[in-house]
């Protein structure tokens, strides 16, 4: 076989290759979408609704819809997910019940998003009577990202050294104060990462909203959480597969994809800022 030195070189070559392929894909996608979509971006594109049977005009209603979905689903999923993670990591004692909860969360994470869509349709749209709406779609998306948020938060809290909790408790500090003053600040950067991953997911999911409130086309903006809405990923899907003139709307399609990408990158940027702020505050 190979000498240790040679096999080291071969292993390193493969690792480098793997990274190169990953990076190449990411940059290709970003470059491809940017170069094709940048031409479509204009003030009108960002601030006007679609015109002429969606072959012209802008995507403003879809941007608004996607932003509403992000806000709505995060408002539900973040507190719920973080509180659940605190319970699981800081309070729950190992045992059968916790094991069942963990299994349930894992299964939730592996559930196809179209199944969430069907559940949302049955539960929120029909049974709870919210109708096809921002509310129903936000709740459905919240369920989709809940396991991501819980997992990321739990993992972030698990990295906090147990000795710090003991030190705090030994000072006559309650468990909840310890969670708030020691565990959460240290875990926050990791939790923010989880939240960001889920924003990307919310912004991009199509199947769940398709079944719970996303509209093919709306002549006006939603005015209440009980209204239907347009959203970027579904709008993109519509333009690319069932628009009135698919070929003619290519630039609009790429423009839409670019806007979606920029929203997610923008949120990422905010996350990096938050992380940096808290890293500075908790000084390792």
């Amino acid at each position, binding site marked *: 076989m190979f000498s240790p030195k040679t096999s080291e070189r071969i292993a390193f070559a493969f690792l480098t290759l793997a990274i190169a392929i990953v990076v190449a894909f990411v940059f290709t996608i970003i470059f491809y979408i940017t170069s094709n979509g940048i031409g479509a971006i204009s003030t009108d594109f960002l601030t006007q609704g679609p015109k002429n049977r969606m072959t012209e005009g802008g995507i403003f209603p879809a941007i608004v819809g996607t932003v509403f979905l992000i806000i709505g689903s995060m408002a539900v999923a973040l507190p719920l997910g973080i509180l659940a993670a605190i319970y699981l990591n800081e309070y729950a004692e190992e045992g059968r019940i916790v094991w069942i909860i963990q299994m349930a969360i894992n299964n939730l994470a592996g559930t196809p998003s179209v199944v969430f869509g069907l559940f949302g349709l049955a539960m929120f749209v029909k049974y709870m009577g919210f109708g096809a709406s921002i509310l129903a779609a936000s709740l459905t998306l919240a369920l989709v990202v809940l396991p991501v948020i819980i997992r990321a938060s739990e993992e972030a809290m698990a990295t906090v050294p147990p000795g710090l909790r003991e030190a705090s408790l*030994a000072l006559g500090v309650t468990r909840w104060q310890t969670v708030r003053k020691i565990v959460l600040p240290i875990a926050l950067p990791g939790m923010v990462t989880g939240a960001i991953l889920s924003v990307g997911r919310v912004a991009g999911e199509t199947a769940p909203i398709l079944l719970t409130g996303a509209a093919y086309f709306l002549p006006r903006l939603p005015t209440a959480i009980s209204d239907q809405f347009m959203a970027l990923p579904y709008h993109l899907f519509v333009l690319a597969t069932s628009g009135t003139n698919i070929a003619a709307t290519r630039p609009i399609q790429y423009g839409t994809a670019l806007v979606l990408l920029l929203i997610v990158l923008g949120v990422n940027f905010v996350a990096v800022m938050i992380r940096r702020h808290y890293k500075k505050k908790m000084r390792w």
Partner: protein
Amino acid sequence: MVTDTFAEGIETEITVMELNLWYGAKQALKDISVDIPKNSITAFIGPSGCGKSTFLRCFNRMNDLIKSCRVEGDVLVGEDNIYESNVDVVELRKRVGMVFQKPNPFPMSIYENIAYGPRIHGEKNKEKLNSIVEETLKAAALWDEVSDQLDSPALDLSGGQQQRLCIARTLAVKPEIILLDEPCSALDPISTSKIEDLLMELKKDYTIVIVTHNMQQAARVSDYTAYFLLGELTEFGETRQIFEMPREKSTEDYITGRFG
């Protein structure tokens, strides 16, 4: 068990009566009774796994954190039986502070580490906090080394400085008793001797109980020594007596290094 009766006039700070402790089905402490004197240093010695750290953690009920742990018997801190059901464990831990084996400062500034406890317990006055920080750092013999860098990260300090910071952090809550669980086992000899000097100083105001693996340390700093073996308190008495004329064969064997 053999216990020396103390000289007249020695006040007891912690009274333990027939304490038994189990981890699940395994009994870790067997029928321990002992009086720990006030304003003195009591050392717990014994081979690994003898239960001395477990016993120490009974005094501030840190064992409560372990689900399978079950305690029977009475522990009086001052007059209060701390294993009664109506005892507020959080209040107890303010009275009975603890310093751990591995220095564990919070990832904050030196100042914030000390202010953490008082602040959570309601102290908001900035000047008051400043003076607590200064006093406790002085008491922990760290002030001269860090007074000009209170806002720098505690984790930038050396291991020995971190451990003294942890002692200062404990003092800031104004405990009556300080428990130390092998506080020097991760430190170099110079840092160790600084901490030992510090403990000798602190015993004027506090009752100190220290678990140590280091026989010389027990002999150097402690007034009283308890020798544990296999979950039992084999011998307890004045340190000089324990080291010079142990009554039990196994104590002598351990102290002279024949096993352990």
